[in-house]
């Protein structure tokens, strides 16, 4: 059962989105920064170390951005998070087979880079500090309903692919993490219903 309402954007959320965007974007002349970024996009500036693993689709920069976002969605603490579960590798494997997804990821990551510049004046999404990244994720998450109905496209313009990507990544990361050994270990789940079953179903600890 999935009862979610596709139009479930509350007034509170909407005000939050508009306020966040207006305040942050007012500091940055977007057209100038966008043209600057467009020249750099083949080799985005970042002071962060990039992942060196072999990916089928992602460039090292793209992989590092995606991994960073997934690590915010399911953080690592004293138990594994999305990073330890290797969510970025699973995503890479999935999108390499799908041209539409490839485009969405490429455009979305470009848009995240642009958002970093427009909203925080950083050279790269990876140069944002954790609070700034969280703010972008929060903004994107709150705006999902509006963006899917087309209402946000004028408001956000070139940022829309980034917003859509973040919301896609939230769903993907949760799906991959909680169908992985790492995710199961975190919540104490023993694995698929069959064939072991749950013969201890009536052995209660209370």
């Amino acid at each position, binding site marked *: *059962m999935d*009862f979610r309402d596709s139009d479930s954007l509350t007034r509170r959320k909407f005000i939050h989105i508009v306020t966040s965007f207006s305040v942050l974007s007012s500091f940055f002349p977007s057209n100038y920064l966008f043209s600057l970024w467009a020249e750099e996009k083949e080799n985005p500036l970042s002071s962060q170390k990039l992942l060196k693993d072999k990916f089928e689709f992602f460039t090292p920069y793209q992989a590092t951005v995606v991994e960073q976002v997934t690590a*915010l*969605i399911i953080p690592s603490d004293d138990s594994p998070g999305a990073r330890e579960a290797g969510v970025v590798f699973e995503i890479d494997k999935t999108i390499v087979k799908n041209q539409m997804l490839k485009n969405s990821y490429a455009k979305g990551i470009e848009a995240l880079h642009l958002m970093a510049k427009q909203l925080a004046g950083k050279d790269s999404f990876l140069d944002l500090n954790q609070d700034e990244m969280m703010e972008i994720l929060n903004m994107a*998450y709150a705006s999902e309903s509006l963006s899917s109905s087309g209402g946000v496209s004028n408001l956000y313009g070139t940022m829309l692919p980034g917003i859509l990507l973040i919301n896609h990544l939230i769903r993907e990361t949760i799906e991959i993490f*909680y169908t992985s050994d790492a995710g199961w270990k975190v*919540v104490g789940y023993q694995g698929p*219903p*069959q064939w072991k079953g749950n013969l201890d*179903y009536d052995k209660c600890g209370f």
Partner: protein
Amino acid sequence: MSASKEVDVCIVGSGAGGAPVAYALGKAGFSVVVLEAGPRFTQKEYHLAQTDWEQYPYPEPFAEREYGGKKDLYTYSQPEALDPKYKKLRSWSKAQGNYNNSDRRRPPHVDRAKGVGGTTLHYQGEAHRFSPYGFKSKSLYGVGDDWPINYKDLEPFYEKAEKLLGVTGLNGNPFKPPGGLFPNPPHGLSCASERVKVGFDKLGLHLWPNSLNINSRPFGGRPACNYCNGCFLGCMMKAKGSMDVTLIPKAEATGNVEVRPDSVVREITVNKNGKVDGVIYFGSNKVEKIQNAKIVVVSASALESSRLLLNSKSSQFPEGLANNSGMVGKNFMETVIYSNTVLFAEPIESYKGLQIDSRAWDYNEPRKENNFMGGLVLGVSALDLLGPLSYAQKIAPGWGKEHKDFMQKYFGHAVNVFAIGEQLPREENMITIDQEVRDYYGIPVARISTRLSDNDLEMLSFMQRKCNEIVEAAGAVDMVRQFGSYDLSMMSHMGGTCRMGSDPKTSVLNPYCQSHDVKNLFVIDSSCFVTQGGGDSPSLTIHAIAFRAADFIIREAKKGNL
């Protein structure tokens, strides 16, 4: 169009109604063809052993394949405007907000499966006898209508179905007639039910092991259940006695019954004498075929059976087959349901066990002190919260630390306390044909017109109040979700579109499910229901009615009356 050799009986549908009839008639020596719209599923198509099993929620694997599972094969009249007087009944979750922010009820969503075994492939295995009151609610309480049969008429057939299937249950339920002993012992209560039972006990309610068509010990060549809780996604181990692993194999073993999957019937044909003489159906690759038969039995569900009759027009039956009364499609009854999802502080491992292992029948029979009419049954279930992914997607906060903390703290701690009630029959709730919309085969689809009455809304309010009292008394620490029929529409139990009765002017079928208008036509499924039995699940009653109707067919055919 190719025609197959005439058989004695052609049955449309292989679910709760079609399978018992096929078995009984095959055993009696009738030649029988069963035409099933869906495929024959095998264990390989179920996902419960895969690591990503949670990524295949219902309607997988039963999605209707001709549409890629994306399109419902029915339309609906505009849902009713929501009565603001009952706004407290809006469906919501802490994590996702309101499920319906509009001012109208959501369109109907029909829970069903097409395949050999019908919707028993998807059902949760509940095997309930309707209470005696359920057949005489008009006489006893002045509500609904009386059936033309009573509990005693069905009792031997309930017993027959329970014995054949090996139904499990605990004898002595104070709210049910004594009846025969269950052939198999009850399943033990799950930890979740034991925990919630505290609340039922405090309120003086009787949470009771559910009677189930799920093996508690090896029976009928099938193993005992291992409590994976995935019953509604397709039972891989065949512990659930869906028709595909019980009565259909028995029917086929008689040597007289042929089951043809992927066979979609578009019309029942009538000869010049006004009797049915067969069906026209689409086989694989949309090839149209004819199956001639001396008797036709329609067992395709309250939605599809009435659709087929209404689509089978002829000069003798211009308003649809067996519809001289104009009652085909009328008195559609949907499902009135309400549920609370709550968290307990301690682990109750609610994802382990059976889908609905316990029920309370205290309100199964109407009570005079209630301000609504009709009965309902309370229950405890994990429902859709069966693994980490469903928790993460449905009740946990969106993402980040708060999300992960919730998952670590509460996975296995959530349970639903819910109620299902009967919707009293009303002529204006009905199935008609939507001539503008056709399915993959070009057959006009059914159109559902259904609205909740004030009585339904009062019943829902009672359900909410009672579920709230139970979870509070049980000591739940948080309510994370409430949902119900007020603004959503989840139709798992449907009935009443070809009701049985003694008067051909006000009913479609006689007490043996035989058409008043066409002697060799039978409709044997929940279409014949006059009322819904106070919230009980319908499958066992459909089985019992089917065995009774089959006995009648055998008797009457021998006399040459059909």
